[in-house]
């Protein structure tokens, strides 16, 4: 009979698997670490946390996930939550987490000194720890950077001379949304809509992935894109011959659009003191361990950016207004939809 055979096969797979994973699956028999972290930031956390444990003796374990989902998990777990620190990407997400009362207000002189004022919550519910810039990238074979508008570089891409030459990320990407949110914050909704409509009028090619976008520029399929700086750094590291250069946007105007990853102490944490110690370490001694592997900029002005991105040169950033990023994000989605940007 075939059926018993199939059952036997299932059992043959199941029994050793269960035995092997055993307690791991049931979540018992293992002492939890001192600090437990929920993080939507994935880049090479082991390195930084390992170094922290080495220096302080405080053990750390973390679980990765998506921003909004981890936030719902925190809320549902309530006072049962094992999490001590919530770490996420995008200022809007940090602002939202603070708004939903899952983070504890903190006061720390060390953090106030290490993290610039606009990159942290006024009540200390979260602190920015790593910074990425979203700026213009171009193929130097086809574009002279003097062609860009140095004052309003993002808006300048609405100029008809860029018709058929632009590649950008899709509207579902938080990168696109927060860029447009900052444009709304800067210029007002009407002007922001005008800019996005200008991009659309230039037949912008909308792509779903920053790396594909860089490859398209490299291949000459488009001349100019808007990218997070670290994707370019990473791709350059793999392929130094890549025909893509970076242009720091709006240097004679409001500055280049930046966003942050950051962290806060979970309101229901049972180990707030060590959680604060970790965040302070990440913002000071641990800055480079935390940001370098992903080619991000340290938020702490005392720390130096790693060599690959240092090559991009210094730049002025647009001051970050987390509340605007969060609050205006929905409006940004509206503006994108109204302009037909998908």
């Amino acid at each position, binding site marked *: 009979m075939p059926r018993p055979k199939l059952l036997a096969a299932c059992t043959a797979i199941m029994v050793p698997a269960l035995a092997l994973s055993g307690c791991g699956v049931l979540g018992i028999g293992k002492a939890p670490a001192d600090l437990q972290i929920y993080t939507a930031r994935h880049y090479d956390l082991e390195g930084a946390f390992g170094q922290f444990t080495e220096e302080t003796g405080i053990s750390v374990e973390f679980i990765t996930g998506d921003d909004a989902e981890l936030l719902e998990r925190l809320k549902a777990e309530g006072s049962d939550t094992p999490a001590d620190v919530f770490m996420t990407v995008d200022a809007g997400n940090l602002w939202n987490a603070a708004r939903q009362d899952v983070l504890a207000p903190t006061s720390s002189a060390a953090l106030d000194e290490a993290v610039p004022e606009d990159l942290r919550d006024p009540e200390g519910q979260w602190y920015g720890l790593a910074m990425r810039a979203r700026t213009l990238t171009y193929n130097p074979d086809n574009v002279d950077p003097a062609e860009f508008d140095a004052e309003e570089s993002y808006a300048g891409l609405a100029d008809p001379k860029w018709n058929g030459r632009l590649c950008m990320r899709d509207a579902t990407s938080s990168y696109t949304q927060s860029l447009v949110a900052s444009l709304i914050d800067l210029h007002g909704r009407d002007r922001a809509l005008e800019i996005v409509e200008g991009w659309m009028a230039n037949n912008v090619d909308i792509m779903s992935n920053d790396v594909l976008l860089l490859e398209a520029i490299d291949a000459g399929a488009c001349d100019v894109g808007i990218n997070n700086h670290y994707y370019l750094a990473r791709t350059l590291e793999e392929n130094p011959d890549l025909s893509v250069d970076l242009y720091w946007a709006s240097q004679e105007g409001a500055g280049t659009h930046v966003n942050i990853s950051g962290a806060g102490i979970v309101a229901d944490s049972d180990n707030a003191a060590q959680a604060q110690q970790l965040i302070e370490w990440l913002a000071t001694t641990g800055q480079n361990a935390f940001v370098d592997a992903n080619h991000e900029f340290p938020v702490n002005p005392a720390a130096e950016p790693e060599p690959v991105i240092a090559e991009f040169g210094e730049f002025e950033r647009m001051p970050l207004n987390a509340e605007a990023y969060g609050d205006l994000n929905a409006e940004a*989605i509206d503006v994108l939809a109204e302009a037909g940007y998908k």
Partner: protein
Amino acid sequence: MSETAVLVDAGVSGPRRRLLTGNGRPMWSAAVLLAAALVVTPVAAVVIDGLGSLNSGSLPQDIGPMIVTTVLLMGGVGLSTLLIGGGLAWLVTAHDFPLRNLLSWALVLPLAMPAYILGFVFLSTFDVGGPVQGMLRTVLGPGAWLPDVRTLAGAVVVMSLTLYPYVYLLARSALVEQSATTYDAARTLGAGRSRALWRVVVPMARPSLAAALALVMMETLTDFATVQYFNVQTVSVGVYLVWKGSFDFHAATQLSVLVLVFAVAVLAGERLLRGRSRFHQKAGRGEGLKSRRLTGWRGWAAALACLSVLGAGFILPVAQLAGWAVGEAAGGSEPLLDPRFVEYLVNSVTVASLAALVCAALALTIGHAQRLGGGPLVAVAAQATTFGYAVPGAVIGIGVLIAFARVDEWLELAGVPGGTGLLVTGSVAGILCAYVVRFIAPAHQAVDASFAKISPALTFSALSLGSTPRRLLTRVHLPLARRGAAVALVLVAIDAVKELPIVLLLRPFGFTTISVWVYELARENFWEKAALPALGIVAVAVIPVYFLFRRSAGLKAGAVTHDQ
């Protein structure tokens, strides 16, 4: 065993039918209601949570176009999977051609390819920056017009290539279970091959085709990864935009009710497609259609047709992944494989096997209970168990979280110290629970399609001869529905191995599966690093497919020998 397959219309079997659908057996009926409650609870928890705080609820601006896009996408994917999956199933079951035995099981493999991986592989190959268009530009000149792949059509192609195996698997088992005598009778009575196919074989396979189509459409409906790659804005994308972009979970749940409306439409459509016609085979299991040998160019054309589908949906993407993995191995200084790979693998296999066993067992229970009767309530409950598949995984995960949180509160109110504690996210209980909610649908569809072919007369005879319901299950229903049950195990196991949002959301500390690991790499665009573990998912998924088909290959081989 008698080989006469008789078409019995259950709709007119009068008193017998009434007897069977009358009171049912309370315990078995209760089991169905319980399963339905299990599925409905997390979905209801989310909906109630959402409706509990009715606010301005910002619907996305272009909700109208989103609805149109969703309908077009579902229609396009449904139609093409029906053609590809149904056509291939007919080709491999009723014909003999070179490589058939290999192809007949290999054709299921695209199911093992997570859509978010195939989407990326497809775009990195065919999009403007990829090698194909690069080559074309070199040949045709830089200004040449090249088709845009990031369109609705592109999404339909990629989704059809991953989803057609649902139709293929269910249609194939329907054809294999189908007795050859009906087809032969039609042929003897003068019907040509195609007439016999369309008038006898297809109508008899209709319940299976409808069931598979419903699965495909629900999967299409809840997809978020693929559509995003192709800039196709469906209602599910709308849900995510509102949730993640507007930071408004409640508005998102209100919008996800709209997704549920689509799901209801799909399931209603499935019932309509199945129609009132129920074709039962009196003789129980058939030996399948006799294979017609395709000779010469016809045979090779058939092989080529299978190979081209397999090539696009499986071989090429696997080759691309393998290429990346090799490149990574050659250039990378880091170890190619994470040292915890075995642990991730074991975690994936364990959870997937548990989920598959539970879902298949529940599906058999439901099919069996429905046979015992119980009336419209049981029928509705049985249908309700399939809803989970039409709800995005993340929503189910949150539903499970909320439901457990409520239970925790009640327990604490009732004086239980600590309530449930951290049961749901402190162990794999939450993941399993959510998997059952989501994957009971494919199990149910597979088993139900098999049950649909068992004549009520068999159930009736066994019962009237004094068989207990349990004996009826083990001696009559289980053997007759065993192919459906095996398909259910395979479908759920594969789905569970590649499942992502639920395990990502509910996993306890230290619990990582292969799919989570691949996603973490893919999400950061480390595609070269993700390639090898992605191949791991594919390799794991091959195992259940192999077991399913080694068995039926034996059966078919017997039929072929007999034919010669």
